[in-house]
């Protein structure tokens, strides 16, 4: 499964309680669209560290890295060798 698909499915299943792919655009801002709150973002970080074997540093915990499926995909690509 692609990184994008893994993240999309995680968000759809855990935050939107659906498997309807049309419920989420990969560019949707999680915060602006009220998909995630700050605890939700921390959960996503925990998921990313677990799933992709990366360590998210404090300075990387910013919306540009984590606030949409596309932002996360780019962030993971940068973090993984």
């Amino acid at each position, binding site marked *: 499964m692609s990184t994008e698909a893994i993240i999309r499915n995680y968000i759809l299943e855990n935050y939107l309680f659906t498997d309807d792919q049309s419920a989420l655009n990969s560019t949707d801002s999680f915060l602006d669209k009220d998909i995630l709150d*700050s605890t939700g973002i921390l959960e996503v970080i925990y998921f990313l560290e677990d799933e992709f074997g990366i360590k998210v540093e404090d300075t990387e915990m*910013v919306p540009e890295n984590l606030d949409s499926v596309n932002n996360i995909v780019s962030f993971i690509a940068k973090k993984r060798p």
Partner: protein
Amino acid sequence: MQALAERYEAEIVNFDRDKEVERICETMREIMRTKLRRRGVVVAVSGGIDSSVSAALAVKAFGAKKAFFIQLPEVDSAQETQSRGSQLIEHLGVDHTTHNIAATLEAIGCYQARDEAIVKTFPEYGDGWKNKIVIKGGLDGQVNHFMLVVQDPQGQQHEKRLDLREYLQIVAATNYKQRIRKTIEYYHADRLNYAVVGTPNRLEYDQGFFVKNGDGSADLKPIAHLYKTQVYALAKHLGLPASICNATPTTDTYSLPQGQDEFYFALPYQEMDKALWARNVGASAGELAAMLGITEEQAKFVLQDIDNKRKTTHYLHAKPYLIESMPELGL
């Protein structure tokens, strides 16, 4: 820019204390007469500024004979806060009881669950160590996250970022404290046919700094509309003991001293009051930056943090959601 600071001084700092006390007391009596229909009030007195002012207002509104105060310490409660609570009770001359909740917390597994989560982060943690949680991120535009600070028996402090599971478990475990306290408050309220007074100030109430079904639960909240700065002003105005008027706000929940701004808010309360007020009057980040002497970018993050906390904690304020409304109950 100057106008905003002047307006804050005029509206928030230099408010009419006498008028406000009178308004709160009259409204409390009105609520008791028309909505709660109880004979008096129970107030849990922690020794902090908010419960002290709420207790004093309750006595002013209903009289000392219609109030019952409770002190609810446990092993992590600081001695100073307990003794300030006792001073207040003596000062106001109200019937009271002390119920140490440590044995209940021990029996329910509060300390054990908390320490399990701490040991996962610091395996060497054990007897003689102390702990607290510190928030990071809000002032830097980062997602709020939490650091665990522990102090070894030699007094050396160590800090690590908490993984989410451990953070949630520590908070869930310590929330037992507020929930057990509320259970005891309602025991006395039920026994006496009294109402329970909740004691959040505006900053705590607005930003969701309370435990649902814990300190968030009450029948009336007399100072929830007052900024913390105003609560301090009323403490002085009501002639409360100097030790209470001058106390620094702490959570009194963790074994290391923990300021509320360390645990929850992006800034100390004096600045948070201004930021929250600025948010409420629709001031810009530039205006807030000038008022607080911080950068415009930091002010933007602080305002954003206020909105984020409102969003994240909205469910704490909410009644249980129903599938359909029940107009016959007004729900």
